[in-house]
């Protein structure tokens, strides 16, 4: 139990000191994961909505695949991105390996299926509810997709938050494609892994506490944004 008490003390001390290295690591974590979620939203929201509304052969198969990819192990995603970005790989000439960009790509690969799958479910439910109404109004299909996305925005936010949770928490992918380079690609989770391997369990746990606090803050911020817009809608 000593460990836990000490870890909380260390966590508070780190936050109060506003340790510059910690700030740098936290900032990079947020940048990488928020960017990855933004990229996933750009891909996953329209893709999920189209999948919900448009019927085509093999659609069930695509949905099963998409749902399964929500469980894609980060290490596997990391490995695939590593092989693609490696100098010996097909995209090697861009020299992206061991940069924050590579980490954003890896996390986007992890988060997009979550966003797309949850969007598909949300929009499909809304679609079955409003389909007739939209059709009777003569709304075009592209137009109705936008309407449904707009209508489901609160549920979709939750999907994006789930994606953010996945991105900020994973270590397997970013440690492979980022390399955990000090001051360049070191984020919260890779720092926790490193400190654990140094046997600094207390510091590792303290960083874990800060990571969870951050996740709570981001979620609270989104929630309050939702509150503001919901009130404004009345």
């Amino acid at each position, binding site marked *: 139990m000593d460990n836990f008490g000490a870890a909380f003390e260390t966590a508070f001390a780190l936050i109060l000191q506003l340790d510059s290295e910690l700030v740098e690591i936290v900032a990079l974590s947020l940048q990488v994961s928020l960017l990855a979620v*933004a990229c996933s939203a750009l891909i996953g929201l329209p893709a999920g909505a189209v999948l919900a509304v448009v019927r085509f052969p093999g659609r069930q198969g695509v949905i099963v695949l998409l749902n399964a990819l929500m469980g894609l192990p980060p290490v596997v995603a990391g490995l695939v991105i590593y092989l693609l970005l490696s100098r*010996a790989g097909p995209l090697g000439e861009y020299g992206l390996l061991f940069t*924050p960009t590579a980490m954003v790509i890896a996390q986007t690969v992890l988060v997009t299926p979550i966003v797309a799958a949850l969007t598909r479910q949300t929009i499909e439910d809304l679609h079955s509810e409003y389909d007739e109404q939209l059709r009777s109004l003569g709304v075009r299909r592209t137009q109705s997709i936008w309407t449904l996305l707009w209508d489901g925005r609160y549920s979709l936010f939750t999907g994006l938050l789930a994606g953010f949770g996945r991105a900020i928490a994973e270590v397997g992918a970013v440690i492979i494609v980022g*390399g955990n380079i000090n001051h*360049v690609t070191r984020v919260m989770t890779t720092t926790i892994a490193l400190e654990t*391997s140094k046997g600094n369990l207390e510091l590792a746990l303290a960083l874990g506490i800060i990571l969870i606090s951050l996740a709570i803050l981001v979620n609270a911020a989104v929630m309050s944004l939702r509150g503001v817009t919901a009130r404004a809608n009345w």
Partner: protein
Amino acid sequence: MASRLFRRLTFIAALAFAALGAIAAGPAQAQDGNFIIVQSTTSTEASGLFEHLLPKFENMTDIDVRVVAVGTGQAIRNARNGDGDVLFVHHTPSEFQFVAEGFGVRRFDVMYNDFIIVGPKDDPASISGMEDVTAALTRIGESEAAFASRGDDSGTNKKELGLWAKTDVNPRAASGSWYRETGAGMGATLNTAVSMGAYTMSDRATWLNFQNKGDFEILVEGDRRLFNQYGVILVNPEKYPHVKKQKGQAFIDWLVSAAGQAAIADYRIKGQQAFFPNAR
């Protein structure tokens, strides 16, 4: 009215994302070109050596050294793929093979330290104080006392397997019973060993810097077969034209120079010298 507010908020959020993107891309591009990537091992990172060494070199040359610390096996594989400018590891036979196969230019000795066998204080196989490492391993194997192996193809793991091969014990046959392969880095394996009360082999520097020792002690040390040599190699620019030949070589030259060697010798963990420079 309401939806206008929402749109505004969305717009602000989008701007924030864009700004974050710019920040994320900024530092990577600002230093573009003036850095090298060094593929190295967990022991050099976890021991704190690089934190001590790199600022000295970086201040002098303005070259940013980016260290990817993985096991020796993985570091060599990464370097073979051209994902690095310099390879700095500790398994001499693999290093010579790397050069012989044309992936590296030339290998330089940099420094050495040694491996040690650590274990719980009550020492179930009673190996404490033994000087013959293979005799100690034999005793562990025969008493079937728990032994945690890296099992990750790292330099330390290769060394450990080489030592077992000189005994009559075949630890891999006992994998899962008393011989436990963690498949992890040195620090993670030390954490596991301490929790299980299992013996393990570590490089001295990682052990000295390790904070979660429990009741563990060094039980076997000093056998010359526990010698641990580190070498450094420039990745071959003829094979991979993007390799930063001059900057990478500048780092290697500094490591083996009088100044670099003195900086290595200066590094102390709790008052003890962790690495001994021996460049020729």
